């Protein structure tokens, strides 16, 4: 097991108790399992619906749900984007 910090961005921020949440996850967990663990920590159906449409990323790249969690201490949860 290890600790994983997840930074919330955009519309996800108000749904967490803090801008960064720390999850306790298995070493061989997938990104999809991180998503499920984060859903347990967010309050309300709106937050979980937004999380379902969100992506997870390292500082380097956006991750696929099916891939193993990279060897990082922190991930970012990114809701749908709208720059410009």
């Amino acid at each position, binding site marked *: 097991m290890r600790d994983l910090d997840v*930074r919330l*961005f*955009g*519309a996800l*921020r108000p749904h967490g108790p803090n801008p960064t949440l720390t999850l306790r996850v298995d070493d061989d967990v997938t990104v999809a399992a991180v998503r499920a663990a984060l859903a347990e920590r967010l309050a309300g159906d709106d937050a979980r619906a937004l999380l379902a*449409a*969100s*992506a997870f*990323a*390292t*500082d*380097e*790249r*956006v*991750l*696929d*749900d099916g*891939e193993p969690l990279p060897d990082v201490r922190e991930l*970012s949860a*990114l*809701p*749908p*984007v*709208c*720059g*410009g």
Partner: protein
Amino acid sequence: MADVRVHAAVEEGALSVDAALAHCAAPEHGAAAVFVGRVRNLNDGRAVTAVSYDVHPVLCARTFEAMAAEALARWGDDLRAWLVHRHGRLAVGEASVVVAVSSGHREAAFAALRYLVEEMKKRAPVWKQEHYVDGDSAWLPGHTLVADA
């Protein structure tokens, strides 16, 4: 090593079109095109006073660099590109993003600029929270990010 042809950044302060055009210049470049995105005072019938931009700065700069590399591969590796997005709360009329491209001829400059602006809307990790005259505020919907290949 940084690509001197590309400038990609997220900034807290006012954006500079002059800086963009100074970067997007070369003796062999006969064309420079620039796009400035500004905060609009109306959206979906609601009067807007300001927009707060949330940004993942590191991933945003990397995404901009990847997009610029794609543009150079497609429209010529002699292009110069500038992509800078604001972070923080902006009043109506302030520039939220400046994108510029220079090239030998206008066709490549126009095409690459359009590509970068459209890709930025879909891929840059940026979020907008609009603030309205009535004191309410709302995060805007957007595009779900797709995993990098």
